């Protein structure tokens, strides 16, 4: 890691070159990635990532550079080069960093002290359990990831903080075949903990859940296309709101009017049963962290409360444009990316309905048990996501499985059409890919009903 003196030299150089704010982000990450499919290790890597990212802001514009070469001459040179387009200005104030504030969370079992064999044994357990679930399960794919990440964040306002982040996740995908049809099911437990996380959960249960989902979908009929009521089960179904409105509430879209929710604070943007929260401060969660990637404490941000738009997720730069304070929502994939406002753990808060009542009161429609991924155009609000496991609802009962469904809509419309929210909130783990790279996120909800939305299909 680089010294405090070096950090101050970089910050001073950036200010001298015309920046009115400068930031240094140093990352040292030891990580293990193992991908295994049945008996074959597709990838087994243990390695160290190391680098420094330097951001300089002038008014509401930014420049960014990064390197793994921490030689002083190199760091000063690249800072000057990236600042070459800034107009030099005298008298800009900068406060050198002095005391390092540390939040070095300890874990019970450090990943670097757990043998590779132990991790491989865990993966083999998952593969065996998944394949044993049913003879239809032909393949099990497991991606194991762990990381011990240390970051130091310093800026020209004197902020100087160090944070340790330990995260781990196992993504399990089962492939089941019925006749010629092959379908998949997945589960992906993860947390901000050490290896003790795998003592706290039963990985075999998760493997069986992935296998169950794949078997349920193998041989299913194709979903009909058209408009219908949709009930989305609790858990990762929350990704729908992550796409439908989460991105559109990030300041990176809102600040310059590129979101359908720009300038609408205080307005009713959703039905009264919808309360949407983003909370990076929930301890030990895959999508959470104690300080964001600008060094600001994370917190619970209520975005929509009983249908009223209450807030956005705001980073420093976009907050400057909006005239609003940052909310601890700034994130980046690594030192190779400039930070910007992103989600952490985003969820619909519990309502008062019961899951079984929501299904019983839906005459005909689609029951979505699991979804995979999606995307959104924040300007128009048009979003989409693919359904991983779904069933017809017929006369208030869950019926036959159906495959190949896509759910589409616009954020503002779907928020207005949520008419029932259950009380069984669950937050699951995933990834989000956007401007500042791929980040770990939590997405969750209770069981929710949307009275009417467009379902795309092949039939």
């Amino acid at each position: 890691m680089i010294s405090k003196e070096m950090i101050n030299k970089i910050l001073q150089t950036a200010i001298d070159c015309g920046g009115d704010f400068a930031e240094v982000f140093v990352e040292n990450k030891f990580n293990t990635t193992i991908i295994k499919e049945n008996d074959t290790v597709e990838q087994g890597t243990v390695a160290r990532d190391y680098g420094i990212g330097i951001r300089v802001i002038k008014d509401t514009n930014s420049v960014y550079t990064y390197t793994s070469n921490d030689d002083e001459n190199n760091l000063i040179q690249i800072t000057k080069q990236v600042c070459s387009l800034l107009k030099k200005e005298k008298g800009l104030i900068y406060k050198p960093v002095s005391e390092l504030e540390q939040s070095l969370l300890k874990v019970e079992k450090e990943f670097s002290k757990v043998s590779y064999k132990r991790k491989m044994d865990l993966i083999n357990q998952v593969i065996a359990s998944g394949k044993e679930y049913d003879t239809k399960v032909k393949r099990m794919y497991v991606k194991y990831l762990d990381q011990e990440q240390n970051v130091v964040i310093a800026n020209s306002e004197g902020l100087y903080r160090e944070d340790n982040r330990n995260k781990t996740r196992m993504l399990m995908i089962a492939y089941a075949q019925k006749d010629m049809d092959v379908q998949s099911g997945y589960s992906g437990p993860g947390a901000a903990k050490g290896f003790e996380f795998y003592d706290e959960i039963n990985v075999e249960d998760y493997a069986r859940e992935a296998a169950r989902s794949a078997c349920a979908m193998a041989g299913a009929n194709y979903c009909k296309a058209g408009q219908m009521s949709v009930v989305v089960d609790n858990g990762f179904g929350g990704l729908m709101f992550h796409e439908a409105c989460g991105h559109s509430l990030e300041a990176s879209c809102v600040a310059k009017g590129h979101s359908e929710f720009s300038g609408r604070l205080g307005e009713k943007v959703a039905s009264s049963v919808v309360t949407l929260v983003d909370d990076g401060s929930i301890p030990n969660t895959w999508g959470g962290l104690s300080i964001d990637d600008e060094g600001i404490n994370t917190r619970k941000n209520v975005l929509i409360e009983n249908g009223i738009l209450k807030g956005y997720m705001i980073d420093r730069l976009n907050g400057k444009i909006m005239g609003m304070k940052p909310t601890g929502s700034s994130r980046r994939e690594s030192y190779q990316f400039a930070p910007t406002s992103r989600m952490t753990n985003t969820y619909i808060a519990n309502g008062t309905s019961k899951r079984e009542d929501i299904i019983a009161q839906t005459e005909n429609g689609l029951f979505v048990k699991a979804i995979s991924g999606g995307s959104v155009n924040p300007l128009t609000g048009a979003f989409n996501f693919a359904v991983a496991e779904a069933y017809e609802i017929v006369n208030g009962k869950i019926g036959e499985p159906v495959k190949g469904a896509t759910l589409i809509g616009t954020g503002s419309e779907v928020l207005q059409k949520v008419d029932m929210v259950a009380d069984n909130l669950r937050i699951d783990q995933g990834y989000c890919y956007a401007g500042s790279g791929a980040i770990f996120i939590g997405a969750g909800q209770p069981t929710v009903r949307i009275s009417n939305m467009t379902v795309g299909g092949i039939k």
Partner: protein
Amino acid sequence: MLDKKFIDYVLEQCREIGIKDTRVYYENRKHTYLNIEDGETNVFRQADEEGIRLSGTYKGYFCSTYVEKLDRETANEAIQIMIEIAVENGEKGKNEKIEENRSIGEDRKVVLDRKYLKPFCSIDWSEVEKRLKGYQEEIKKLDKRIISVSKTALRQVWVQVSLFEENGNEMTESYEFFQGFVSLVVEDNGRKQDAYASDFKRSVEEIDYLEIGRRIFEEAEKLLLVKPIQTGDYKVLLSNNVAADLFSYFLPIFKQEEVDKGNSKFANMQGKEVASSVLTIYEDPSSSEAPVVRTFDDEGTTTGRKYFFEKGKLGAFINCSKDAKGKVLTGNGFCKNYKSPIGTIVRNTFIEAGKRSTKEILETEKRVLYITGLDGLFAGVNAKTGDFSVIAIGLLMEKGQVIQPVNQITIGGNFYQMVKDIKEVSSDRWQTDDWENYVKAPAILIRSLKVGGL
């Protein structure tokens, strides 16, 4: 900048510790990105990154890792860990000697002797900044309904790849390209529509920002009064950029490893007619038409052209040494970057053009849904089954006239059926934005796809 002494040190350490058939893959990537948003320079990013990927065999087992901080201490740590996990990974080392790789490309010795290194093109970014601001002003003036030009950007990418083998062989080459971007928002009577496109060229001067701006404005303008249409089966014309995007997601089915896993329905069908006779698709990492030009892959195998479809008949599957199993190597063993392991990667795919332009095709079709934009491909495409259902935007047209601009619909089908149902391809082509998954395609007319709407 490549430090040959460091590479020699790494090779020596590997030799001493007992790693055989060592190969060091070195990558140096210089890139700069400058964006002008509504008259202001809002983003300028610049980086010069380098790293190495080591691979070899230890006690008969394949091992591989990467090093980002290029110093001896980090390299030693990486090598030590690499051999510790090699046996546990359980991947048997390859028996094929590197020099004897058979491939479809040039003779390996020719490439070994070439050591081609194109120098990095140093440009004056303050001058580029002025020019981009000027282009943005001109684009804004195209029409008063253009309320924002959120992106007039330039990206410069220069990459050097070098391979060093323990026997002293060395292969080096580099490529460079520029990518220009334009994104704008059109508003009329409270309705907004955005549009975006990019183009690749070998020099900044060749990028025609005004033409890109004009093209996407015309597209966005037509879509201002969008609304969904009825669910049903429609004849569909995929615009050339949409066809490129959609096809790019199905290219994994041409990989030998996916065929072997049962993830491609084209298994055992080489030489058979599996698609419309108007469809010819080939892949070529060495094609200078694409931004990335590689004459050897990251295993040192020379690259060349392979046909996926030749007038509807199924052609080659592509491979790398891990899945070739005695077949001729196709030169598709690449890593995405030094952090990723080597696998079979599709590079530079071209769908051959037809005779008539998109405009001519539209003018002769009685009724067709012209799709100009797709989203949700990442989640909505299942390359294993061929099924797809993705959100779309476009124009319902009759004999070249717009009947209704359309949004909030999905188009769905199955790739294996769709390629049989292709009626015609256009003469004009466009490409994907993704230079690492580059596809250049014409507009494609399909007899029927399912549309999910009202």
